[in-house]
């Protein structure tokens, strides 16, 4: 081995390529790559860009359905919304940048996903954020949480896309590695749908938007595709790998791009995201079966002296690559000038499928590779998978069950997770109404401290604001208005994750998640029509993590098939790991639903005085489980009950979705709320607080009945006059109903278990978040 070989070995490793991957590059090219080529392969073959560890599993997801116009693999999924309109949606993680620099990490997360949407020709109309942090008792977690919220607020508000909902959760597994998943939805006239493809030899590649700087170089490989160490200082040193966002630039870019697409001035357009110009140019070319020459000297730079590899892999924000016929260039420049957007010809579409980087027009060839090889030839890994040890233990190793442990629900041979043990007599002593009230108060929180910081109303579409089971938005946007005289329609959106269910059983847990998300949109009267996912996992080189991913995908596939909901896009975030410890498996799903006829008065998840409180769906001890419940997690210092997650009957769930959407659409209910984490107790408490009334219910029976979690359950508040019809419709759908009690009074009473003043509950609800996030 000579000195050059040693140097290049060191280089590919620094760039994040393994020795095998470097050899594969050499095999593709038939020669050793130069430094620029190696840098381009390193970013394109990174986990972040290539999905090399997850792609073999993602294929198992159902992706087709009657309304799907564009499935996974493009910048965003697109679903037919009827009336000539379509909805584009995508969700993506920005976990690692946010861990290092929370404001910019979250801001550019929003910026990136917004570009994915308007790239498709859609006007971005809604953002949602699914946020997870470590416990707020640690100062760093508070800094991360408020930084991320400020970043979303600062960027999203200014760029002019409302943030209409999301999730916020604190759990120990996210200390050091927060999760910031951002969903964006856009609306477009069906005929404006654009796919990022280069066509026509001689057409021009025009770079739109910001100048290119040194920010975010190698962000996809160095930051997004590697784990964090324990050294906070060393991680802080990665801040230069985080991009810096400018919402004003992006706002102008949105307007310019939509005008260019509206006027048919560009053939294809692609945003510059991870792996920057290399990715945008090579993917656009290879999707169109073409090649491309990029003149690296033509790229407008933010600072002098940038190396070609820096220009080609920079992740500077707010840039797009448009494919323009030479005859349209003048008009393109004119539109861009009006919006004060820079437009620069940086390349040309070529025949033959080569992706070349040149120094000046007709200048020195700095790189010359097959365009398709940069993503098409990325390695695919079937990484080793292994179930955690506790699943493999022989049945005999299961600890003996105490008589009161609910043992009848645990089938023989069921494996028990570490730390699980039976409930003791001492534990039961803490199950007094006072203790249970305290447990409930610790669960309830009002998310409005967060969403008040987000413009959630722009475009006059937001019918149900954040805080409802799902956001409901009128389907209308500048440039994508419904046909005059057509009935007002709406979409419903819900993002959902549950690491407790998914760490207990990633397959069953993910199926429960899909079921919950669909039920959330049904509670607003919508029919679920599509789902996107963001799969947040630990280090894929850990066999247990790959097992979790594979199981989660199987659970998602089963539930989506059973409920008839196609998966139209997704994102995988690996290496969510700090100092060797992986996060709990956290698949997040976002479900899109459609409301065919939008009318005022969609029921809120709220009780009203005198309304009957009705539980819809399975009831009794087998319907719920404390395993993986919020209550169990909260009482982590107590001996934990063990067992399985509650079973999910997909056929029943499907009937329930139709039933609930129908009841809501017919306005037969005054309030509807999915019973999810926190069980019946939390669902009841939330409905009571939002309705500003107490309630009295009975027959809940046990701790499992109060805090146990299980699918396919909805709490309804029904006016007495409608009760008979609600029950009749449920009977016809073969869904069980039970009247638990009625709204009214100033106490929340669950007979025999809970008796709490509404004033105390409302105070805990309002103060929880501001108190937790305030400095001590």
């Amino acid at each position: 081995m000579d000195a050059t070989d040693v140097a290049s070995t060191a280089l590919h490793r620094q760039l994040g390529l393994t020795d095998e991957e470097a050899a594969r590059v050499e095999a593709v090219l038939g020669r050793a790559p130069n430094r620029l080529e190696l840098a381009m392969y390193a970013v394109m073959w990174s986990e972040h860009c290539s999905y090399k560890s997850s792609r073999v599993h993602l294929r198992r997801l159902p992706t087709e359905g009657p309304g799907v116009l564009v499935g996974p693999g493009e910048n965003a999924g697109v679903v037919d919304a009827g009336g000539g309109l379509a909805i584009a949606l995508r969700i993506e993680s920005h976990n690692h940048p946010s861990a290092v620099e929370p404001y910019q990490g979250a801001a550019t997360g929003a910026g990136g996903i917004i570009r994915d949407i308007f790239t498709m020709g859609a006007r971005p109309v809604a953002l949602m954020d699914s946020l997870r942090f470590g416990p707020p008792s640690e100062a760093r977690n508070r800094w991360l949480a408020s930084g991320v919220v400020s970043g979303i607020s600062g960027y999203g508000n200014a760029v002019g896309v409302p943030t209409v909902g999301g999730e916020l959760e604190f759990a120990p597994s996210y200390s050091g590695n927060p999760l910031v998943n951002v969903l964006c939805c856009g609306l477009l006239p069906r005929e404006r749908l654009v796919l990022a493809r280069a066509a026509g030899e001689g057409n021009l590649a025009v770079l739109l938007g910001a100048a290119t700087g040194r920010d975010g170089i190698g962000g996809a490989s160095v930051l997004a595709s590697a784990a964090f160490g324990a050294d906070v200082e060393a991680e802080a040193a990665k801040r230069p790998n985080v991009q810096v966002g400018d919402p004003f630039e992006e706002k102008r870019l949105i307007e310019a791009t939509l005008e260019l697409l509206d006027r048919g001035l560009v053939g294809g357009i692609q945003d510059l995201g991870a792996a920057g110009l290399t990715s945008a140019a090579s993917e656009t070319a290879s999707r169109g079966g073409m090649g491309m020459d990029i003149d690296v000297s033509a790229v407008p730079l933010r600072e002098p002296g940038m190396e070609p590899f820096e220009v080609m892999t920079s992740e500077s924000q707010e840039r797009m690559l448009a494919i323009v016929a030479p005859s349209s260039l003048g008009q393109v420049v004119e539109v861009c000038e009006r919006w004060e957007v820079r437009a620069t010809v940086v390349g040309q579409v070529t025949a033959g499928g080569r992706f070349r980087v040149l120094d000046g027009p007709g200048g020195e060839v700095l790189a010359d590779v097959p365009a398709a090889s940069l993503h098409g030839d990325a390695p695919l890994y079937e990484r080793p998978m292994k179930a955690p040890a506790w699943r493999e233990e022989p049945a005999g190793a299961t600890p003996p069950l105490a008589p009161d442990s609910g043992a009848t629900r645990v089938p023989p041979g069921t494996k028990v997770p570490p730390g699980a043990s039976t409930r003791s007599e001492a534990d039961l002593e803490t199950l007094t109404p006072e203790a249970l009230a305290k447990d409930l108060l610790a669960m309830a929180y009002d998310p409005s401290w967060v969403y008040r910081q987000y413009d959630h109303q722009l475009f006059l579409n937001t019918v149900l604001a954040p805080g409802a089971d799902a956001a409901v938005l009128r389907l209308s946007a500048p440039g994508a208005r419904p046909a005059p005289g057509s009935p007002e329609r709406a979409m419903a959106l819900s993002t959902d994750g549950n690491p407790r269910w998914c760490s207990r059983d990633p397959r069953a847990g993910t199926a429960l998640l899909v079921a919950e998300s669909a039920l959330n949109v049904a509670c607003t009267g919508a029919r679920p029509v599509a789902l996107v996912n963001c799969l947040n996992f630990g280090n894929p080189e850990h066999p247990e993590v790959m097992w979790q991913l594979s199981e989660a995908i199987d659970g998602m596939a089963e539930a989506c098939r059973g409920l008839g909901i196609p998966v139209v896009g997704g994102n995988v975030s690996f290496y969510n790991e700090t100092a060797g410890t992986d996060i709990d498996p956290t698949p997040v799903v976002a479900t899109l639903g459609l409301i065919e006829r939008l009318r005022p008065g969609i029921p809120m998840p709220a009780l009203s005085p005198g309304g009957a409180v009705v539980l819809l769906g399975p009831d009794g001890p087998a319907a719920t489980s404390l395993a993986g419940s919020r209550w169990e997690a909260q009482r982590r210092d107590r001996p934990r009950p063990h067992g399985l997650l509650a079973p999910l009957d997909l056929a029943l769930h499907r009937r329930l979705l139709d039933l609930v959407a129908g009841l809501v659409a017919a306005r037969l209910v005054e309030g509807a709320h999915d019973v999810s984490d926190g069980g019946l107790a939390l669902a009841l408490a939330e409905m009571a607080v939002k309705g500003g009334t107490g309630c009295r219910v009975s027959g809940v029976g046990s701790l499992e009945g109060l805090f146990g979690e299980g699918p396919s359950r909805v709490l309804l508040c029904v006016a007495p006059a409608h009760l008979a019809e609600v029950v009749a419709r449920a009977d016809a759908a073969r869904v069980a109903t039970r009247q638990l009690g009625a709204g009214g009074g100033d106490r929340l009473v669950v007979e025999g278990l809970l008796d709490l003043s509404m004033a105390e509950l409302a105070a805990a609800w309002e103060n929880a978040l501001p108190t937790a996030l305030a400095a001590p």
Partner: protein
Amino acid sequence: MAVRVGVVVFPGTNCEHDVAEALERLGGQAQLVWHTTTSLDGLDALVLPGGFAHGDYLRPGAIARFSPVMAAVNEFARAGGPVVGICNGFQVLTEAHLLPGALQKNRGLTFLCQMVELEVASDRSALTAGLVPGRRLRVPVNHFEGNYTASAEVLAALESEGRVVLRYVTNPNGSAHDIAGVCNEAGNVVGLMPHPERASGELLGSSDGLLLLEPLLGRAAGWRGQSTSGPQLLVSGASNP
């Protein structure tokens, strides 16, 4: 002929389509006016809508006041034409000295997007003509810099001249005297932080914003009738009685 309202759009403005939609619900006709426009001929009123003009860089409104359109806005206002600044538009009008005072960061140092209750404080303005002082309205706010401030003398003058137009019932942002909106001496130039267009229908939870936009259209129609000799020329003289 429908009243024609120019909705001024700076780069970074984002509420222009919403304002246009709300005006059109009332039968008005909205026309987007790009910030480089120098002639406002044919327009009966102007709205400077919310958003982040020029990215709010330096300070909200600080750059927008130098946009070419502002000379024409100034002239339009001096001639008596109704001009309303909503949120960022209010900030622009204060920076342009068409309205007194300034909007500083909210007391709580966070952005605030929420429904607020307002009280009509004066019926002297183009937005509140015909509304009984004391009347309560539910209209959302959406801002980071909505904390109205002015010198004691200016505040005293605003109060004594009935130029405090709208007040918050519960002050969300620290504004002096709970001020949510003010007007100039003639009442034709009005600025307010709340967004009337966001309270323009039952689906949005309130229609009270229309109660503010309706008087604006009325004033615009009236002004058009008086302004034939002013700098504003009508598109069609024939339709002008």
